[in-house]
């Protein structure tokens, strides 16, 4: 069973809000959430917890960490936040899975602290920009349904993101999660990570979703080419937020790659 914890990362320092589940004796897995944060301890995390000690923090600015956004200025601050969190939990290194903006953060961690990353799975990664494959603008959407474009079918926003939550809190939370994403990705999601990807020497898998409106599948090839030895796969039946749309398939992908080195 999972627990949402609040941890002080160091005296006088940052607070982390983190879901933790699975057997602490299992291999550690750091889950880096997408633009839409972590609406709940969902099926993807639950399935991953069968094989991993799952550590799923809200990045500064998302969900219960909404007020921590001013303290996070750039990718380096996010890397330090996650590394400090692992240290606080006594985890020296972890398998890392990042979805969407979380994939960018995962790549930064692997480039800057390769010793902290045992394997790297990047799903629908943001952070590189191509004029040829710009995708939809995630931040220029109708305010009535601001994240619908992130799903393969707009109705899935209601079904997967907003369900079982107070409607006003869910909507405001959706906008605040987008605000946090915008802080790091505005106005063009070119984070500069492209200069650092060559430093990654961890086993890396790039996955793109066939119905992702934001990250074109061709971007998977660009990421794969930039990371030495990286492999890539395509995911069926999903849009950008793969952890909500195809939770079991995503969990299988991560388990097979991280623990067995299998990409099929």
């Amino acid at each position, binding site marked *: 069973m999972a627990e949402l914890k609040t941890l002080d990362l160091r005296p006088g320092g940052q607070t982390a809000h983190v879901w933790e589940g699975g057997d602490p004796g299992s291999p550690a897995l750091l889950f880096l959430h997408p633009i839409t944060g972590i609406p709940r301890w969902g099926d993807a995390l639950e399935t991953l917890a069968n094989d991993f000690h799952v550590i799923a923090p809200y990045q500064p600015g998302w969900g219960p960490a*909404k007020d921590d956004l001013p303290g996070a200025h750039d990718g380096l601050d996010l890397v330090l936040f996650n590394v400090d969190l692992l240290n606080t939990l006594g985890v020296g290194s972890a398998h890392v899975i990042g979805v969407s903006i979380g994939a960018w953060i995962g790549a930064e961690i692997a480039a800057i602290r390769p010793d902290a990353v045992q394997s790297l799975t990047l799903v629908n990664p943001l952070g590189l920009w191509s004029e040829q494959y710009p995708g939809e603008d995630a931040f220029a959407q*109708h*305010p009535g349904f601001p994240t619908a474009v992130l799903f393969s079918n707009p109705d899935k926003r209601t079904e997967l993101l907003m369900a079982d939550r107070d409607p006003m809190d869910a909507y405001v939370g959706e906008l605040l999660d987008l*605000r946090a994403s915008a802080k790091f990705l*505005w106005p063009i999601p070119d984070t500069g990570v492209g200069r650092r990807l060559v430093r990654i020497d961890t086993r890396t898998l790039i996955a793109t979703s066939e119905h992702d409106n934001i990250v074109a599948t061709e971007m998977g090839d660009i990421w794969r080419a930039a990371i030495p030895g990286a492999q890539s796969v395509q995911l069926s039946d999903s849009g950008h937020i793969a952890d909500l749309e195809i939770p079991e398939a995503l969990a299988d992908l991560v388990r097979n790659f991280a623990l067995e080195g299998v990409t099929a």
Partner: protein
Amino acid sequence: MKFHWFNLMPWPHLPDDFRETNRSVWVDVDSRLYDPVEGHRVYNEYLDQLEFAAGLGFDGIGVNEHHQNAYGMMPSPQIMAASLARRTKDVTLLLLGQSIALYNPPTRVAEEMAMLDVMSGGRLVAGFPVGTSMDDNFCFGSNPATLRDKYRENHDLIRRAWEDPDVFSWNGEYNKIRYVNLWPRPIQKPHPPIWIPGGGSVETWDFCAEMGYNYSYLSFNGYVRGEALMQGFWNRLGEMGVEFNPFQGAFAQQVVVAETDDQAEQMYTEHLQYFFDKCLHVYPGFADAPGYRTENTIRAGLRAGGAQGLGIAHTLEWKDWVREGYIVAGSPDSVAEQIEALATKLQVGHLVTLLHCGDMPDDKARASTKLFAEQVMPRVKHIWEDYEDHWSPKPIGSEQVATPAPVLTGSN
């Protein structure tokens, strides 16, 4: 009560099917619809109208800033105000305003506004809007998550640049300048009157209350819908212990005047329809970037039902526009009555009139303006006469005002 004449300067030649063939009048509007040579004529016509209004006795003439749109063609309000400064004498230059968060360094804004205050002999009102999301976030690429923090820092830097006589260093989050030392300095001390154009952000109310600034509600929803919002502003000032003065509030309102009510409808309907139908056709995805509004403002808007009103204006007719207050319109008698109602409802001392609407031709804009100045203003200027206006410029004396020399030609 004081009256200002303001022109958004819309592009007047959008096609009939604009709404069907363009998703937005702003940000990604088709630039092929713009003709620079016709733009030359239009700019001069609009500037002439502002000067015409000054000559008719309006208290102020207004310009503002927008980008990448056919709704208002003034990317630089300073350029327009500079032109007006030389050709007018005693009218207030209402620069309403400059989106100060966009400029790095913002000392450039401080410099240009100081130049305008000096050029005009101390006639400048400095408007400091946060700016629209379309302009700030989508056209200029300013980050919505940090926009308001940057706005506050830029405001603080501009104020200090105007007021601190010594060279100082600015080590801010968004600006780092080792030597700040403004030349020239504004005539008006400690600074030109500052007005904050806003659209309903509760934080902006508090800011105006704290700083003693004028709050200018710029909305095209009209005065009927504006009542609740302005009352919220006045209530907030009361809660914060600020004494009521109507001149701390301003309101922008579409106004059209003709000899009779029927004539007004006949003369102006098509131009107002152009404005509501085409000039306000903004793609909703550009209207509110994530982080542009604060959580407090989002929640306040949701509690209020999220009613905007503007989304339906283009579907209404003349009688609805008048009844709902989208426009103040009719004969001089009717308009005077509506102005009195507006003043009572909103309790504002400054009315920023938009007497040019949409694709209105010059002769109609001038006719409407003249009737307003000559037959409406004299009947309503007395409103709020018991209050002192602390938010208008304090120009230099007439004996000190420089007069531009006549332009010499080769033959003389």
